[in-house]
């Protein structure tokens, strides 16, 4: 439903987004990751038609956002960064205003407002001015505005920013649930969020896409993905290391902890040979040698490691 082709957005000489292409279909939740200033918000602003692109082609539901902005905008619900709202309006007034601009009148408007008020838990603050709201409520009010016309496409810039852990959980569930029927893009700094809600992740760094895949695919790119973590009691670390070094599928071992007779080790697979069998091999070896295994598990690799590995070195170089 969203198709971005070779998007470039420049502000003066500075390229905020540099040749970004991606698509989002119905039923997909796309997570946008990246350091601050990487171009996440700019990309979203172009998709929603707020910024015209410097070059590139963006279509939303088949409509070109430059040539045919109104039908494209009708399909989108947008939660901008920092969840802006008219300070002097009440929550109810603001939602009614948004509904009217979305072409909802009379009963349809009342129904729509009632629906999002319930969805975003705004009953208690309905007649409060927006500038008196706490950050969480302000955020939910703006989210309610984005959902008011039950859009096919949702674009959300840091939808959980400023929410407490319970609210974060609610919003993540909401995104996941809505993602079954809509096309959703959201940006975040929180990596668990991506794992919890996204079907696909794009990592942007300095205006370019540096990674694009499912959360699992990205996690597999971590250095310790597929490594085996083991804890053994009553044996010397040296003996274990020695034993493990005879395994053909193990590349090397790393000693994580050695105190009070408990040893923790991480065994890295030899990627050319292991093929996912390392955990089984280690387990068999331990059974053979009668090691007192207390714990044995395969490490999944962590998204934050991948994120750092991809985005950090260059950022440091740039400074």
């Amino acid at each position, binding site marked *: 439903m969203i198709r971005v082709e070779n998007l470039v*957005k*420049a*502000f*003066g000489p500075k390229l*905020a987004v540099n040749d970004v292409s991606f698509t989002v279909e119905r039923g997909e939740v796309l997570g946008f990751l990246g350091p601050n200033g990487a171009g996440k918000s700019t990309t979203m*602003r172009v998709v*929603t*038609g*707020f*910024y*015209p692109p*410097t070059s590139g082609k963006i279509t939303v539901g088949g409509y070109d956002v430059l040539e045919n*902005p*109104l*039908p494209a*905008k*009708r399909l*989108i619900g*947008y939660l*901008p*960064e*920092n969840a*802006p*709202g*008219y*300070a*002097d*309006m009440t929550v109810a*007034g603001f939602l009614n*205003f*948004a509904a*009217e*601009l*979305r*072409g909802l*009148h009379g009963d349809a408007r009342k129904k729509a407002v009632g629906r999002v008020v319930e969805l975003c838990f705004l009953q208690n603050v309905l007649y409060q*001015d927006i500038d008196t709201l706490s950050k969480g409520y302000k955020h939910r009010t*703006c989210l309610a*505005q984005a959902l008011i016309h039950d859009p096919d496409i949702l674009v959300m810039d840091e939808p959980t920013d400023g929410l407490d852990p319970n609210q974060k959980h609610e919003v993540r569930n909401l995104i996941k649930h809505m993602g079954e029927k809509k096309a959703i893009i959201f940006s975040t700094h929180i990596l668990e969020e991506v794992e919890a809600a996204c079907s696909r992740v794009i990592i942007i760094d300095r205006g370019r896409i540096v990674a694009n895949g499912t959360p699992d695919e990205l996690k597999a790119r971590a250095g310790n993905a597929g490594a085996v973590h083991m804890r053994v009691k009553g044996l010397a670390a040296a003996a274990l290391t020695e034993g493990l070094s005879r395994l053909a599928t193990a590349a090397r071992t790393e000693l994580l902890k050695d105190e009070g007779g408990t040893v923790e080790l991480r065994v890295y697979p030899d990627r050319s040979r292991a093929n996912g069998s390392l955990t089984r091999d280690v387990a068999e070896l331990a059974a053979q040698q009668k090691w007192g295994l207390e714990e044995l598990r395969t490490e999944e690799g962590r998204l934050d490691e991948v994120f750092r590995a991809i985005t950090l070195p260059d950022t440091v170089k740039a400074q």
Partner: protein
Amino acid sequence: MDAWYNIKAIVKRELGGYFTSPIAYVFLVIFLLLAGFFTFTVGSFFERGEASLVSFFTWHPWLYLFLVPAVGMRLWSEERRLGTIELLLTMPVTTWQALAAKFLASWLFLALALALTVPVVITVNYFGDPDNGVIFAGYMGSLLLAGSYLAVSSMTSAMTRNQVISFIVSVLILLFLILAGYEPVTGLLSRFASPTVVEVVAAFSVMTHFEGFQRGVVDARDVIFFASVMGFALFATGVIIRGHRAG
């Protein structure tokens, strides 16, 4: 039809915004006090012994100089400061609809302020027998004058997210529009410039074009002048807003 609904929704919101905060009431009170002060004290309404509102309308270009930018300064700078401009312009609304609606709402508010001066008309009708056609023309001119000032304020408001800067720049531009045709200035200018130059400069002034209305003359050229000031300033506002987004 959509355009009409959009404009209506935005006008309603803007007007609501004025009246939910004390700004509107403070403005109306100050406007009426100053209008009264200029008319009766500075303009010596009673001492003139005429059944006309000359002393009322004469001061409007000066009165509006500070009051209209006070209304217009927040039009776009506030949207930019709050970030709501991003919401507004990603709604299925064109920039021009938003622009026209916000302008119309403020103009309606100024029209309301002007309408509240009707007691002056009643007073002058009570004491004498004025030409109400002239008074009507005066009101029409005053409304066009306010609209032109407002359009200029809308333009300066789009330039910055700081309302104070917006106010000052707006007052400066308006001051130029007044002084270009203000007699002491044109008198000074005519000492070292040819009459044609003086005339051309004065033609840019709101004073020159507002004068006719005060005398009860509704000249198409004057109406066109005010309409083009509004058209130009609003067009510039649109260009500035688009410029921010184009980067």
